[in-house]
């Protein structure tokens, strides 16, 4: 077991997959000599060379579309979007082509590829370096979407994504990259796509979260236990599509109360799907309204410090929402 932060875990995951399979390659902006703007690919260019760690021109459409073509050819590309905020030039390739190549060809063409994207706020990135835009991809049939919250999950899910026969959107919350270190199983440990993780057990209410929110929710849960005697169950979804419905419904059946937390704004956000699913399938076991806690209804995170703080969710805000629901 090694102690790694999430950034190191992702790098190690890619390194091991590239060693394992010569078809795995990385492409993106500044992923080569510079090692990526966050350092995720540091050292890999020196180790695997110009072609397998490929600095592309500044064209996200090209990155996604060429990765798709390479996947058709038999490679297993890992494409990096420098920031999730800059994925939109690639949206046509991802939605029109990558998500449905298999369906439209009746299963004869598959696209095993990964698109890695740093997302999320709290790093003074403002409107265009802070977005949590997972809802565009969770709404897209044919994609898989993961958002790990721990180093072990980051590495294990990265490996699963690279080996998956279908395209995987891999969301990395940039605030968590160096937030903490934790034990990561050595070697070939794969975390299956589609399985949630009960990060903390509790009987009073369920908190559903992913990415950076896992850390905030766990901290909030400790406060709730300490100050309110409320035992919150924290369920880290890890995979957003396909969603682990069983894990969610099992937890709600136990607690009767569901709090769905995400950093993105609420209206039209992914939380709506989780909340609606719970409301429909767990109707009889609900002791309180399925509650969503999400970012405010503005286009993205504003820059100035106080404004950013106003936008961001936090353990304190989760505690507040959980108290209201627990008291219901």
């Amino acid at each position: 077991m090694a102690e790694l932060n999430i950034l190191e875990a992702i790098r190690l995951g890619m390194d091991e997959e590239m060693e394992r399979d010569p078809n795995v390659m990385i492409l993106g902006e500044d992923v080569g000599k510079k090692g990526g703007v966050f350092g995720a690919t540091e050292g890999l260019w020196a180790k695997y060379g110009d072609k397998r760690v490929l600095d592309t021109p500044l064209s996200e459409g090209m990155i996604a579309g060429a990765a798709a073509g390479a996947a058709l050819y038999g490679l297993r590309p890992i494409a990096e979007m420098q920031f999730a905020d800059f994925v939109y030039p690639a949206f046509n390739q991802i939605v029109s082509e990558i998500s449905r190549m298999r369906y439209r060809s009746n299963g004869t063409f598959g696209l095993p590829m990964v698109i890695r994207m740093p997302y999320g706020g709290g790093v003074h990135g403002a409107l265009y370096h802070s977005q949590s835009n997972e809802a565009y991809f969770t709404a897209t049939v044919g994609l898989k979407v993961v958002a790990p919250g721990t180093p072990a999950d980051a590495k294990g899910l990265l490996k699963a994504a690279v080996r998956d026969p279908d395209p995987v959107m891999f969301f990395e919350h940039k605030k968590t990259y160096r937030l903490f270190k934790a034990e990561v199983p050595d070697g070939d440990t794969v975390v299956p796509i589609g399985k949630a993780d009960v990060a903390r057990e509790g009987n009073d209410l369920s908190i559903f979260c992913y990415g950076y929110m896992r850390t905030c929710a766990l901290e909030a849960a400790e406060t709730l236990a300490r100050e309110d005697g409320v035992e919150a169950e924290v369920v880290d979804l890890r995979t957003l599509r396909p969603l682990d419905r069983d894990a969610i419904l099992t937890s709600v059946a136990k607690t009767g109360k569901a709090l769905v937390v995400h950093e993105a704004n609420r209206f039209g956000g992914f939380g709506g799907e989780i909340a609606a699913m719970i409301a429909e399938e767990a109707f009889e076991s609900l002791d309180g309204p399925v509650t969503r806690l999400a970012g405010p209804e503005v286009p993205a995170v504003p820059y100035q410090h106080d404004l950013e703080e106003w936008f961001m969710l936090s353990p304190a805000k989760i505690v507040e929402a959980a108290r209201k629901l627990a008291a219901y």
Partner: protein
Amino acid sequence: MSNSKTATKPRHADLGLSDDDVLAMYREMLLARAVDERMWLMQRAGKIAFIISGQGHEGAQVGITWPMRRGQDWMAPFYRSIAAALTFGMSIEDIITAHLAKGDDVSSGGRQMPGHYGGAPYNIVSVSSPVGTQVLHAVGLAMGAWVRGDDSVAITYFGEGTANQGEVHEAMNFAGVHKLPVIFVCENNGYAISVPLAKQVGGMSVAARAHGYGFPGITVDGGDVLGCYAAGREAHERARRGEGPTLIEARVVRMTSHSSDDDQRRYRDPEEVAALKEQDPLLVFGRQLRASDVLTDEIDERLRSEVKAEINDASKRAEARPDPDVTTAEQWVYADSPEAAAGSAAAAASEQG
């Protein structure tokens, strides 16, 4: 190229093509045209809801595609590429089956509209509707060959309107940077549905853009099949020599309305439409082959009846195929069954590569 002087030896001989070769090319064009016309018949008969046609594009497609190697090279076509797909080895029956949307159709199992063929067994990428997306796939396929060090060339086809999509620019630039083994074929028929070249292409030439990406762009007359062949062969050789991409702009004619949903009389002059007949590449190439004593009425007759018979057989077989089974409609959203991995081009290619 179209005006290169005629030698005493027939021009195709200069190009290293035998009489049989050029007759085979002519036959491929006849075949593509006949399949296309059959689709229209089926559409009028109510068997097909929608038709988008390659009539007028066949010379460019057959000529340029001729040098491609089946099973080794890759093709990312568009919705007018019947002639190219046939030349690259797709069967008549599979083309017709795709239009009839049959359940065991290799292209999409009846999931896609007519004109959206393709298939892993042929190295032909599944056609989609959003124009231009396939150009990046071709570049990605070429990148795959380049990363692996394989001798494989990717070719892609698109219209002059599509040339103005941002993705086409991104594709050509990237291919230019790394001298990828890819051939860009722009079939310029002067219209994007109703929008004429002058309102579509700044500078009026798509070929002229290649220079800005660091590779050659040439314009060929789509009626000059041998000129198209020469351009395709040179582009293919350049790609294999590691010298990078070529952009070939073929000036072709759109002999039909944009599709069965369109009526070009709304935006095209009657004279212009009338003049199209004389520019029919089949007619032009046929005359050339007669002039060089390769084609005779008798051979022409024979070829046309052979082609007709083949299409009749293929149509019968295609029509006899079963409609899709609705219970399978949710299959293949993901590789939810073992066959997927096996059947996927990815898997196939990895075995090759």
